[in-house]
C-alpha cells in the first residue's frame, strides 16, 4: 500500500506542479499570442492526420498480422513494434534517411511527384504516424486475436461474404479495440516531439506543434512554456474523461 501511494504521488506530482505554476491570471494573454493558437491548431490537425493514416494503413496490417499465417510474421510484427521502443529522435533520423530529399525513397518521390516531406506539415503527419501507428496496430491486432474468428465463422455459415462479414460483424465487434488503439495512437501523435523536430523541423504555422513550441519557449520564457504545458495537460485530461466510459472500461 505505501508503495502504491508513492507510485501515485510519483506520477501525479509533476502534473500538480504544472497546475500550481500555471499563470492562471495571465493564461488568456499567454494563449492569445499568435504562435500559440497556430501550434495548437497544427497539433490537432497533424495528430488527427496521423490517426487517419494509421487507421487506413494500420487496420489492414493488424488484420494480416492477426489472421493471415505467413512465414516471417514474427519478424514483421517486431518491425512494426520497433518504433514504439525506438528513441523518437532516432526515428526522425531514420525517416530523413528514408523519406528525406536525399532519402532512398524520398528522392524518388521528389523526382517523380515533386513531393518533399521534410519541413512540411505532411512531414509532421508522417513523423507522428511513424511513432503512433504501432500503438494502433498492436491494440487492434490484439482485439482481432481475441475474437479468434468465431463470429466470422458464424456469419459465413449464415451466408455472409467476406465484405459483409467484415462490415457487419468484425468491425462492430472490434470497435472497443479500434477506439482504444485510436486513442493511444492519437495521444502518442499529439505528444510527439523527437521525430517531428528531427524530420519535419520547426517552423511556426507549418511544422511547429505544441510540444515543439513548449520546448522552445522553455529556452527563453518559462512562463509561456508552463502555460502551454497546462493547455496540453487539459487536452489530455479531456480526452481521458470523454473516452473513459466508452473505451477504457475495465472488466
Amino acid at each position: 500500500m505505501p508503495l502504491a501511494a508513492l507510485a501515485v504521488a510519483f506520477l501525479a506530482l509533476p502534473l500538480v506542479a504544472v497546475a500550481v505554476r500555471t499563470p492562471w491570471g495571465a493564461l488568456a494573454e499567454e494563449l492569445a499570442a499568435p504562435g500559440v493558437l497556430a501550434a495548437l491548431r497544427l497539433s490537432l490537425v497533424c495528430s488527427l492526420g496521423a490517426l487517419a493514416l494509421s487507421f487506413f494503413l494500420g487496420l489492414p496490417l493488424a488484420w494480416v498480422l492477426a489472421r493471415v499465417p505467413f512465414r516471417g510474421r514474427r519478424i514483421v510484427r517486431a518491425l512494426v513494434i520497433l518504433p514504439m521502443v525506438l528513441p523518437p529522435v532516432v526515428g526522425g533520423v531514420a525517416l530523413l534517411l528514408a523519406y528525406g530529399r536525399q532519402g532512398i525513397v524520398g528522392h524518388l518521390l521528389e523526382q517523380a511527384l515533386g513531393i518533399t516531406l521534410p519541413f512540411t506539415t505532411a512531414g509532421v503527419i508522417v513523423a507522428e504516424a511513424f511513432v503512433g501507428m504501432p500503438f494502433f496496430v498492436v491494440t487492434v491486432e490484439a482485439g482481432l486475436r481475441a475474437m479468434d474468428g468465431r463470429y466470422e465463422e458464424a456469419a459465413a455459415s449464415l451466408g455472409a461474404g467476406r465484405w459483409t462479414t467484415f462490415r457487419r460483424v468484425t468491425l462492430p465487434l472490434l470497435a472497443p479495440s479500434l477506439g482504444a488503439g485510436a486513442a493511444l495512437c492519437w495521444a502518442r501523435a499529439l505528444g510527439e516531439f523527437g521525430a517531428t523536430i528531427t524530420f519535419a523541423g520547426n517552423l511556426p504555422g507549418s511544422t511547429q506543434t505544441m510540444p515543439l513550441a513548449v520546448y522552445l519557449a522553455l529556452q527563453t520564457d518559462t512562463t509561456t512554456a508552463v502555460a502551454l504545458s497546462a493547455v496540453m495537460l487539459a487536452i489530455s485530461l479531456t480526452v481521458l474523461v470523454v473516452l473513459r466510459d466508452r473505451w477504457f472500461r475495465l472488466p
Partner: protein
Amino acid sequence: MTRAAVSTADPSAKQGLRARVVLRRGTLDLSVDIDARAGEVVGLLGPNAAGKTTFLRALAGLTPIMAGHVVLDGAVLEDPAVGVRTAPEERSVGLMFQDYRLFPHLTVLDNVAFGLRARGVKRSPARQSAMEWLAKVGMADAAGVRPRALSGGQAQRVALARALVLRPRLLLLDEPLAAIDGSARADLRRDLHRHLSWFDGTCLLVTHDPLEAVTLADRLVVLEDGHVTQSGSAEEIGAHPRTRYVADLVGVNLFRGRSAGTTIMLPGGETIVAADERYHHGEVFAAIHPRVVSLFREAPEGSPRNVWPGAVEVLDAIGDRVRVQVHGPMPLLVEVTPAAVASLALDEGGEVWAAVKAAEVVVYPA
C-alpha cells in the same frame, strides 16, 4: 434460396446428403462416410474428440476436406479430386454451433435477420421473416434484447431460429442441448423435436447424450476416433453394441471372443456359454444385459451355465434398481432389486458369485 453450386446439380440425383469426408487435423484422422435422405434426422454419437464437430465443420465448408466429397441434393459442394470447393456462405447449410455464437452487438431480431440480409433480402421483409421465426420458437418477446440478456435455453431457441429462417437444405446441430442444464432441457428437447419434424431438409445432430440421440434422431451413427464404428436404429445399436463406448452408453456388458460351438473363449482365458448356436465359430460379441445377471453369496448349484466369482465394487441406486459393479476376472455391471441387496447383505468389497443363464447371452458376429 438454394444458391449452392447450381451448375453442377444433377436433377436426377436423390434429395439429401452424400458425404465422404477425409481430413487430418492435429492428432485427429477423420474418415467418415455418411448418406442421409432429405427429411431424415441422423444422430451423430461419439465420445469427446472423436471428430464430430470437425465433421460438421467440414460439411459447412469451414474446414476444407483433403479427400472425398460433399454432395447435397445432387449438387457437389466440395470434391478436392475435381477441384470443387463451395465457400461456406454459398452453401445452403445451416450450422448451429455448440456455443450458439449469437452476435453480441446485434439484437435478437437482427441476429435472426442477419442471414437474410446477407443474402440480399431488404431490411423490412427480413425482419418480418425473422419475427415469424422468433414467434415459432417462442422468443418473439425477446426480439429487441441483446443476446447477453438471454438464458442458455433462450439463446438456443434464437440460434435455432437464426439457422432455420434461411430454410437450409442441410441443418447441422452441434450438441444443441449441451449448454442447457436441468429442467429446461426436457422442454427444449421436446421443442427441438417438434421443429425437426417440420424440417424437410437433411439434419445431422451431434450429441453425446444417448437420450437426446434416441428421442431426436431417426437413425444413429457412432463416431469414434475419426471413424464410424456403428450405425443403425437405436434399437439395433442398443441390442448389438460393437464397441466398449457403445456398450457403456447403453449400459450393457460386452465381451469379444472366439466362438467354438456354444462356448466363447475370451482372450483372458475365461469362457462364456451361450445357448444360441447360430455363430458357432469365429470372432463374436457376447452381450449380457445387467438385469439377467443373478448374484449369490455362495457358489450356486444347478442350472446356470455361467458362474463367475468376484467382489462388489460400487453400489448405485438407479430408480427402483441398484446397480452393482462386480470386479473380478469377468467384470460385470449388474442390476438387482433393493430387496436382493438386503437379503444378500451386499456391501462394497464383499465376495459374490455372478450367474448368467446360457439363454440370456446374446451372441453376434464381430
